[in-house]
């Protein structure tokens, strides 16, 4: 599988995401925000960072980057898209996912090893996990508080669209401890924690995140 990783001005986890894609057995394709070209990739990752310095709102300016036209169009037709951290913020700003991400309720940037439960393993990005599998991956954000109106939360919970939930500690005040969600079709996933930093034992953060980068291949093989 060819998985594109888009670099925006101020992105900082693109190289880690590319590496995670390769460790996961896929081909990583570097994509540029200013192009109108997805280079025929089978899936797209919007990596973490501080695109456009988080000016206006996190992800609000990147959401209108040239390449996002193709990403949004593709996502609506079923292209698998994974947004991590700043990428998740871009996905809510694009309205590909519902709700919004606000400043952490405690107002401080937080960086910790975060325990999560993968509650939906039927998305394009989580099929390698067992249902309700518990994993630990790094989390680092300043504006990671997931919010949505009561009806949206009810729908997300009712339709099993909460992909990952914080366990033990809610690090940012997210409603219902929500760490990640998916769209109705299950091809678009937004996640605040960083699985791409937990794919090799060498870096000491475990390999619990690897499933996000092997799921696509498994899904295709299972067809």
């Amino acid at each position, binding site marked *: 599988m060819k998985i594109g990783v888009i670099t925006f001005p101020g992105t900082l986890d693109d190289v880690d995401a590319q590496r995670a894609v390769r460790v996961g057995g896929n081909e990583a394709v570097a994509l540029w925000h200013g192009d109108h070209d997805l280079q025929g990739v089978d899936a797209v990752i919007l990596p973490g960072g501080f695109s456009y310095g988080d000016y*206006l*709102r996190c992800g*609000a300016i990147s959401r*209108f980057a040239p390449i996002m036209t193709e990403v949004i169009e593709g996502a609506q037709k079923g292209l698998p898209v994974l947004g991590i951290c700043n990428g998740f913020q871009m996905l*809510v*700003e694009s*309205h590909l996912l*519902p*709700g*919004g991400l*606000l*400043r*952490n*309720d*405690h*107002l401080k940037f937080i960086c910790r090893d975060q325990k999560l439960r993968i509650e939906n393993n039927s998305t394009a990005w989580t099929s390698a996990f067992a249902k309700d599998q518990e994993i630990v991956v790094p989390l680092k954000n300043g504006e990671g*508080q997931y*919010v*949505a*109106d009561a009806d949206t939360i009810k729908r997300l919970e009712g339709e099993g669209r909460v992909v990952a939930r914080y366990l033990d500690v809610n690090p940012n*005040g997210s409603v219902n401890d929500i760490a990640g969600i998916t769209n109705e079709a299950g091809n678009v996933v937004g996640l605040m924690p960083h699985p791409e930093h937990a794919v090799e034992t060498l870096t000491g953060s475990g390999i619990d995140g690897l499933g996000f980068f092997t799921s696509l291949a498994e899904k295709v093989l299972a067809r």
Partner: protein
Amino acid sequence: MPKPEILDPQGKAVLGALPRLGFTGVTEVRQGKRFELEIPEITDDALAQIEKLAETFLANTVIENFVVRVEEPAK
């Protein structure tokens, strides 16, 4: 402005600082943004366009409300 039902952590932090500074009697603080856009001429078309750009770009209407106001620049 953040919508009324959205918790505003920054406003809460400002509110928390007020008593420490000796300002009492304030029960709620909410923090928003103000953008000043200059246009050569105020027309219905221009205002409609500004309304649209506020809705699609300057504000995220999932979490924020906005108001467009016309002001003449100080001479």
